[in-house]
Structure formats: structure tokens, C-alpha cells
């Protein structure tokens, strides 16, 4: 009798499971819904909160969001888009992926959509951002959700106490000198936070901007690898020496999040990183709110060295709901959404860095008065096609716009991170990296 009871229970559970399983189905959702895959950044979390009450209410289109961490979302997007599985209609892609995906035919061109959408105002998108989302065929394949550049954030109060002044556009040598002087200005405080965590998007992003301004490059115009060239070495030695001498504790593991923590908790006096960090440091619950100053990305030989990055919305070519997908993109990247965020969540949370009109809104300027103008100047001054002192084979400031760069950049960053940890030298790290870069260069030289 007892085992019959077990059998009955098992059958019931199985039936229930099968019933639940009916909920599945590739590219699911009703005709009036779209599937959106996003990176889990704070701006996207806000979008998720606002979509149902605003976008869905106005258009009747339900948005099914999937949010994942950055590395996972990249894997998932490339998996879905490369196989054109069509599970997702819209995904957040960056200006690194957009030209590559467009060339592979995985994205829907958006020119016809924004031409017909009078309220969208494509001309309002900041020129470097628009350019970076345009493919080789001259068509636009993604619309920005927010844009960012890089600049130097520093503790004004700490520098003031030491009688130091940060120039508006400092050189790297000036930054290194100030880092040495403010190192230990408060108990446990180091001079500067610079990323040391391996990853093409972690350590390699700020370091490549330093390489650019020191006169170095990954590749020459005719695809000669330059990773162990004197300029690349000089820049990397400068970076590694600075972070080892006056950088944060645990530098080989420190990425954006760790540096944000260090800056918030007063463990570093300066930080060179993404402009998007300024909004987090100046947020209402931040202990360092109001104590910060902002300067342009430090330079050596170039006029500017700031990077350019944007998270943008691309529509998958295989999407059967491209019209509805555009309505969502138009809403999320539009001026109206910025106003919606400003009024509902606060003007410091506006997904900025993409439209020139943002920087003319008095409410926004009042909320981000300490960094808004510097951030806009950094983005406007970024030159994705001409970031250094020599011509480049492909565009990209803090990355090289080829599919191989994610792997190459990550491998090289592991070696440089080891140099920051002290387990190898910069010379050895870059000599080994040169061989890796040369393999990639060969492929593009065609020999």
C-alpha cells in the first residue's frame, strides 16, 4: 500500500512538472511582446523598473527582460545572434561589437526606422557615439542607451589639504607626482586606483588609453604588431610602476567595482576610470559626495586620451518583431526617457553621454554640475578612428575593433597583471605578448 502511495506521488509530481514545462518554447512570448537581453548595469535596472508602467502602458507591447552580468551577456548575445536563433529581438551591444556584428549580417540596419520616426531626433546623438555605432557600409546598426568616456576623479579635499591643485587637463607625469604626494594623506589612503584585474575590458581599457597617449599602438596601419615596441613598453612600465608604488591594495585583482569601493571608502585619493563612475560617487548615499573634483583624461603626446564606450540597443536580424523592437529602442534611447528617469528617479540617474540635448537640460546640469560638462567634453573629444599618434588599421580607442581582440587583450592583460603582482617583469610580459599579437596581425596581413 505504501509503495502505491509513493507511486501516486511520483506520477502527480511528473504530471505537474510536465504541465509547468509547457511554459517553455524558443523565442517565446505573444505577438505583442518582445524579448530584450541586457547587461545588468544600474541604468538597465532602472529601465526594467520603468518599462511596464510607461512603455507597455502606452504601446501595449510587453517587454520580457533577461539581465545578465557583462561577460555572461556577451556570451549569450554572441551565441544567439551568431546562430540567428531569434530568441531575443533586442540586445545591449557596445560600440566594440556593433561594427563586427553588422559586418556579419546579424543586425537590422536602423536608418529607415529613425528616418520615419520624427520624434527620435537622430541628429541629437553625439557625433563620436553615432560614428562608433555606424558600420563600414555607412548604416547605423545600434542606438545608444548611454555613453561614457574616461576621466580622472580625485578627492578635492585631500588635494586641498596638501596644497595641491589638479590641472584641468593634466599630464600623466603630473598625476604620478600628485599620487606620490597624496599617498598616505589619510590613514590607509593610497595615491591612485588603476585597474589591475585581467580582462580586455578591465585592465586593458585604461592601459590602452595610456599606451595611445605615450605614442604606442597595438598594430600599425599595415598590421605590424607593436606590443613590445618602445612606446608600448614605456607606457606599460609607467602604469605598472605607478600602481605598484602608489596604487590601491590588491591591485592585481582590482577592476571597476573594486576601485569604486576604494574611492567610496576613502582608500584612494584619485581614480582614472569611466565617466559613468562619477554619478555613483556623487549619488545621495555616497560618503564622498561633494568632495570630488574631475579632470580630463591625462595625456602625454596626444591632445586627448579619453576612451569612448557606449551600451546600445541592436535589433537581431532574425527578429520577427523588428517594428515593435524599434518602438522599444526609440523609447529607451529617446529624449522622453531621459526626462522620465529625471522626474521619477532623479536627474543624476539619467542614462547620459549620448545626446547633446541632455547637456542643455538645466535640471540635469544642476544635478550633475560637478562632472556633467567634463563628461560631455571627454565624450566629444574622443576620436575612435584616430586615438593615437599614428594611423590605425581599424577603429577603437581602448580596444582594437576586431573579433580576436577579446581573447588577445585578455591574454596580454593576464601577463601585465602578473607584472603588477610582481611575479614577472613588464619586458618579459610584453615580449611574450608580442608573439600573440603577431599571430593575429599575420591573419590580417594575409601571410
Amino acid at each position, binding site marked *: 500500500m*505504501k*509503495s502505491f502511495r509513493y507511486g501516486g506521488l*511520483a506520477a502527480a*509530481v*511528473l504530471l*505537474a*512538472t*510536465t504541465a*509547468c*514545462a*509547457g*511554459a*517553455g*518554447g*524558443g*523565442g*517565446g*512570448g505573444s505577438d505583442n511582446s518582445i*524579448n530584450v*537581453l541586457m*547587461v*545588468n*548595469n*544600474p541604468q538597465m*535596472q532602472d529601465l526594467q523598473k520603468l518599462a511596464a508602467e510607461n512603455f507597455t502602458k502606452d504601446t501595449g507591447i510587453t517587454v*520580457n527582460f*533577461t*539581465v*545578465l*552580468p*557583462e561577460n*555572461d551577456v556577451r556570451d*549569450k548575445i554572441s*551565441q*544567439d545572434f551568431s*546562430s540567428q*536563433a531569434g*530568441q*531575443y529581438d533586442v540586445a545591449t551591444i557596445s560600440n566594440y561589437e556593433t561594427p563586427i556584428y553588422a559586418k556579419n549580417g546579424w543586425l537590422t540596419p536602423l536608418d529607415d526606422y529613425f528616418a520615419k520616426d520624427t520624434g527620435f531626433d537622430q541628429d541629437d546623438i553625439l557625433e563620436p557615439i553615432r560614428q562608433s555605432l555606424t558600420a563600414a557600409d555607412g548604416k547605423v546598426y545600434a542606438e545608444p542607451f548611454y555613453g561614457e568616456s574616461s576621466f580622472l576623479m580625485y578627492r578635492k579635499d585631500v588635494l586641498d589639504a596638501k596644497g595641491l591643485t589638479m590641472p584641468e587637463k593634466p599630464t600623466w607625469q603630473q598625476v604620478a607626482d600628485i599620487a606620490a604626494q597624496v599617498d598616505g594623506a589619510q590613514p590607509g589612503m593610497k595615491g591612485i586606483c588603476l585597474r589591475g584585474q585581467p580582462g580586455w575590458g578591465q585592465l586593458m581599457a585604461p592601459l590602452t588609453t595610456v599606451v595611445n597617449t605615450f605614442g604606442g599602438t597595438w598594430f600599425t596601419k599595415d598590421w605590424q604588431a607593436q606590443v613590445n615596441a618602445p612606446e608600448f613598453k614605456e607606457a606599460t612600465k609607467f602604469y605598472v610602476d605607478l600602481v605598484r608604488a602608489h596604487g590601491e591594495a590588491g591591485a592585481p585583482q582590482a*577592476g*571597476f*567595482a573594486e576601485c*569604486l*569601493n576604494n574611492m*567610496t*571608502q576613502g582608500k584612494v585619493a584619485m581614480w582614472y576610470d*569611466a565617466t*559613468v*563612475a562619477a554619478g*555613483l560617487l556623487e549619488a545621495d*548615499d555616497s*560618503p564622498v559626495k561633494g568632495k570630488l573634483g574631475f579632470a580630463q583624461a591625462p595625456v602625454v603626446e596626444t591632445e586627448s586620451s579619453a576612451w569612448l564606450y557606449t551600451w546600445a540597443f541592436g535589433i537581431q536580424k532574425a527578429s520577427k518583431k523588428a517594428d515593435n523592437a524599434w518602438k522599444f529602442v526609440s523609447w529607451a534611447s529617446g529624449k522622453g526617457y531621459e526626462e522620465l528617469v529625471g522626474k521619477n528617479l532623479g536627474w543624476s540617474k539619467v542614462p547620459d553621454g549620448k545626446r547633446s540635448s541632455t547637456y542643455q537640460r538645466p535640471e540635469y546640469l544642476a544635478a550633475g554640475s560637478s562632472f556633467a560638462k567634463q563628461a560631455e567634453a571627454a565624450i566629444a573629444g574622443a576620436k575612435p578612428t584616430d586615438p593615437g599618434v599614428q594611423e590605425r588599421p581599424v577603429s577603437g580607442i581602448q580596444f582594437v575593433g576586431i573579433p580576436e581582440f577579446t581573447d588577445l587583450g585578455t591574454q596580454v592583460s593576464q601577463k601585465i597583471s602578473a607584472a603588477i603582482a610582481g611575479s614577472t617583469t613588464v619586458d618579459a610580459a610584453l615580449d611574450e605578448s608580442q608573439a600573440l599579437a603577431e599571430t593575429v596581425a599575420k591573419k590580417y596581413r594575409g601571410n
Partner: protein
Amino acid sequence: MSRILGLAAWFAGLLFFAPVAWMVLTSLHSEPDAATNPPSLAAPVTFDSYAAFFDSDPWPPLINSLSASIGSTVLVLLLAIPAAYALSIKKVEKWSDVLFFFLSTKMLPVVAGLLPIYLVAQYTGMLDNISFLVVLYTSMNLPIAVWLMRSFLAEVPGEILEAAALDGAGLVTTLRRVVAPVAMPGIAATSLICFIFSWNELLFARVLTGVVAGTAPVYLTGFVTSQGLFLAKVCAAAVVVSLPVLVAGFAAQDKLVQGLSLGAVK
């Protein structure tokens, strides 16, 4: 001597429990407190992270995980028990080869099968479908379950089976009245292990699911962000996601201890 061993056992126990305790503690702090280094034990307690977790509507992924785990565990048992019976009590020909064959299916690294399985799911329209995960988890856990159940059934004394046969019991009666009660702790232990493996599986779930069939581990990773603080929220989510496994473990505790120590004192 026994006191020293007792102390060592306590120390080992606490050492293994420390990460879990840390996770619970971090989940009860605010994000800035959770991110402090060195970590602060005395920071004020808040349930904000739990509120944020439940506000984010975690029920669909939790139900998906439950469906995939229970469904696959039931299927595994339905298939593994008869297979184990045929490999231990009424042994089939070349039973040891069969047993090794089952085990050999676990020798291929899981990740090596990822792409073919993804393509099969895509071509059959089974991407983002829980049924596909149920089938997958069943096949992944079946070899282990067969091995476990075989060793449990091998413990059933031949004398009881002979006595049942002498009393005129048929196959079904023997299985129901003789084998099942003896093997129940083993079945409980096997079920729990299969349930835990399915519940915690991330690799396939991440690749094969999307909008509707995402499981709890995939949902859990969604709290990690590269911009901003997330430790407290991830810990709160991890605590909640761990609960079903803990509950299942406690519920089956007696049977589990019997099952896992079966044969130890033969």
C-alpha cells in the same frame, strides 16, 4: 584523546560552515557595508537586499528550477531502480560491462557536449524550454543514480529474497514488500543527490534557456553587475536559492544518514 578529536570535529564543522554564515551575514548588510574591506561584522542589520530580491519577481525561475529538478529526479528514479535491480539482484549477462558503460558516459567533459546539444535544441525548437532541461538533467544524473542504487540494492541480503520466494512472493510483491523498505534510505539519498545536482546546474541552463525557462542559478547570476555594488543582493539571492536544497536535506536527514552509511558496518 577523544576530547581533542571532538574539538577537531567542531573546528572542521565551523570551517565548512563559515562561508555559509558569511553569506547570510553579508546578505543582512547594506550594499556599502557589505563591500567594506576588511568586512565589518558589526554593521547594522537590514533586510533591504531580501526585499530587493523578492521585488524582482523571482518566482518564475524558482518554479522552473523546481520543475526541472523534481521532474528529472522522478524520471531518474523510474529508470535507475529497474536498471540497478538488473545489475545487482537479478544480474543480467555481462553486468559489469554494462555498469562500466554507464560510467563511461560521464567521462566526456560536460562542456564538450555543449555546442551539439545547443544545436539540437535550436533545430528541434526546444531552446528556452524546461522539458528539454528535464530530459538533459535526467540523462546527466542517470549513470550516477544507477551506480548508487546498484550499490544500495546489492546490500539487500539474498536470504530475505530467498525467504520471500519460498513464501510464494512474485516479482512485484518482492519489490514492493521486501526490496523497497530495505532500499528506501538508498532511494532517498539518491533522490537528494540528483535533486541537488539538477537544482545547482548552471552551465546548460545558462546556454539553453532565455526568457521563460531560466532557472534559479541563472537568475542568481543576474544580480552581479560590473558597475555598482551587488554583494549583499547576490548573497540574499543565494540564501533564498539555497533554501529548497537545505529543506530537502533536513526532510530526508534520517533516511540520508542511513542511506549514506549503508554497508559501512556490514
